[in-house]
């Protein structure tokens, strides 16, 4: 048996390598400064995602010399830097930056002794996501996924003496490990059927195998269902969503934010890679029972309905945002089941816009929690009077989540629905997508109800509010970053849209 070392392309992995080293450096920095530096660790940690982010942005804008050969495949095609990878890395790194920025409050007050670990684990988790984004086959994908999740288990339970936090950690851990077991079991079926873990290869093999041996369908079916469950956990897609509200509520707010954006984006990448890429052949009603499209569509409907409906009755803003993020996952999945030149592009733009809005909203929640210790929606009453900037920016984030133009959230929803309709108008067999769109638009209206509730409390009350918000610099920066994101990319979205336009091609959905 030949055993040759695959090609070794360190350039492809430069940002990841930097992240790894920097994460370790953050650990050590905290140690060597004897855990005395309050904010310095945080600023230090910010460099971790910021440098790779700039690197990738420079590469994409052509500012990086061609000789750096960042894009393309490496490590025996196991590691692949295409637009998808780079775009999602931007999302992950952006989410990490915003999460770190909004963590300054809790690192100052609550986790006095473990700042380095906190930031380091966050960076490790981001690193996992970056690997995930670049992975081109199941093994890397799995490793990336685990590298993402395991630090998050720890982070969720980071308030060691806070029962809620520990409970969140336990729940997240058990359900996470459980779902990754399901995922693995499903993957083993895929491997068994196709004999490969390479996703592109699998796409071809599967079709061939399936044509010759129809009776393997049961295994395939089991594999698909298990994989949907495994990745659905990451996405908090109903019915695999129940951990999300509990975990969001219990864990530190920046971590909840990071979970809701980073982890979700990671799940999206994984989902896209496994299904859109690897299992593309099994899509569409005529592929039943192995069709994953309708199944995911059904889950999307469930997500939109359950998320938006249950959110209405929440009294804790973090739980509310958790349900809202469940619903948002539903909207994203609409784009996921559109296998044409619009589908994955809309998913990518959606998660990008969602990152700013949701991270911003959580950042606002974190600011509020740092100052008052409360996450109850009731306590936001009358805030517009004392803290107009806070109230306006939180409102804008929420409005972006509803999808009110000209904020980025609107364009995101627009793109998702547009994708579904573009397919439905062309392909008669895809007319079920109209139903997805129908449920989507209707639940979007429902969603206004609970988002507006927060605005109502902040603005409409004429009572004197109990709290007044003061901002730390990093937290304010995160707020402004989020605001800038939803406003700028709502109005001037062209560069991002241009970028995401090539993403469907990465999944082999069309040839540019």
């Amino acid at each position, binding site marked *: 048996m030949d055993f040759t070392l695959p090609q070794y392309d360190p350039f492809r992995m430069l940002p990841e390598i930097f992240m790894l080293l920097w994460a370790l450096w953050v650990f050590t920095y905290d140690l060597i400064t004897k855990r005395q530096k309050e904010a310095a660790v945080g600023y230090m940690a910010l460099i971790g995602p910021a440098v790779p982010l700039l690197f990738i942005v420079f590469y994409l804008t052509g500012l990086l010399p061609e000789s750096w050969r960042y894009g393309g495949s490496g490590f025996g095609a196991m590691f692949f830097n295409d637009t998808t990878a780079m775009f999602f890395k931007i999302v992950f790194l952006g989410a990490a930056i915003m999460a770190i920025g909004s963590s300054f409050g809790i690192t100052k007050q609550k986790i006095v002794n473990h700042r380095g670990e906190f930031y380091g684990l966050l960076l490790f988790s981001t690193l996992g996501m970056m690997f995930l984004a670049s992975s081109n086959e*199941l*093994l890397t994908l*799995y*490793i990336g996924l*685990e590298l993402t999740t*395991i630090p998050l*288990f*720890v982070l969720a*339970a980071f308030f*060691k*003496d806070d*029962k*809620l936090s*520990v*409970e*969140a*950690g*336990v*729940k997240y*851990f*058990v359900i996470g*490990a*459980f779902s*990754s*077991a*399901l995922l*693995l*079991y499903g*993957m*083993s*079926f895929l*491997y*068994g059927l196709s*004999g*490969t*873990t390479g996703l592109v290869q699998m796409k071809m093999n599967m079709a061939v195998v399936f044509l010759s041996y129809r009776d393997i369908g049961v295994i395939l079916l089991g594999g698909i269902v298990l994989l949907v469950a495994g990745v659905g956990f990451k996405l908090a897609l109903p019915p695999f969503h129940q951990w999300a*509200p*509990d975990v969001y*509520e*219990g864990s530190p707010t920046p971590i909840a934010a990071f979970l809701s954006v980073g982890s979700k984006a990671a799940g999206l990448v994984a989902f896209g890679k496994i299904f859109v890429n690897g299992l593309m052949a099994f899509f569409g009603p005529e592929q039943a029972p192995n069709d994953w499209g309708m199944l995911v569509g059904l889950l999307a409907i469930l997500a939109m309905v359950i998320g938006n409906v249950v959110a209405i009755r929440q009294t804790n803003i973090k739980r509310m945002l958790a349900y809202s993020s469940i619903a948002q996952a539903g909207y994203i999945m609409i784009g996921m089941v559109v296998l044409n030149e619009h589908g994955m592009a809309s998913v990518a733009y959606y998660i990008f816009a969602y990152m700013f809005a949701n991270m911003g909203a959580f950042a606002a929640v974190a600011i509020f929690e740092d100052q008052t210790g409360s996450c109850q929606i009731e306590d936001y009453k009358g805030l517009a009077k004392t803290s107009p900037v806070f109230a306006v920016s939180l409102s804008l984030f929420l409005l972006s989540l509803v999808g009110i133009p000209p904020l980025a959230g609107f364009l995101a929803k627009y793109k998702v629905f547009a994708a579904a309709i573009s397919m439905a108008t062309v392909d008669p067999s895809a007319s079920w997508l109209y139903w997805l769109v129908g449920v989507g638009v209707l639940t979007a209206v429902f969603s206004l109800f609970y988002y507006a509730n927060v605005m109502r409390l902040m603005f409409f009350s004429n009572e004197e509010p109990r709290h007044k918000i003061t901002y730390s610099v990093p937290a304010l920066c995160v707020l402004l970053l989020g605001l800038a994101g939803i406003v700028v990319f709502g109005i001037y979205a062209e560069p991002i849209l241009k970028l995401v336009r090539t993403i469907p091609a990465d999944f082999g959905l069309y040839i540019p």
Partner: protein
Amino acid sequence: MLFYLSLAAVLFAVGLFGVLTRRNTIGILMSLELMFNAANINFVAFNKYVWADGLIGQMFAVFIVVVAAAEAVVGLAIVLLLYRNWQGIDTDHVSVMKW
């Protein structure tokens, strides 16, 4: 091969059952390991009997073992926290947050 696949399925089912019914968190952890191992067996069996021209399945299994170990470490640490906070490791404790 069918034997191995069945073994894996049984293992998986036992693990699943354990996860669902154990009150002891450590027990759950162990059941999770069973489920991971079911996947391992599958990978290796497929590699051996169906796709013999490569080692991907076995490699995969190795990685799973590693990751499972890491997961177990983190899991045990969290269980420790559970114990610290409640002086017990029953899953009953962790149902404060609901609806």
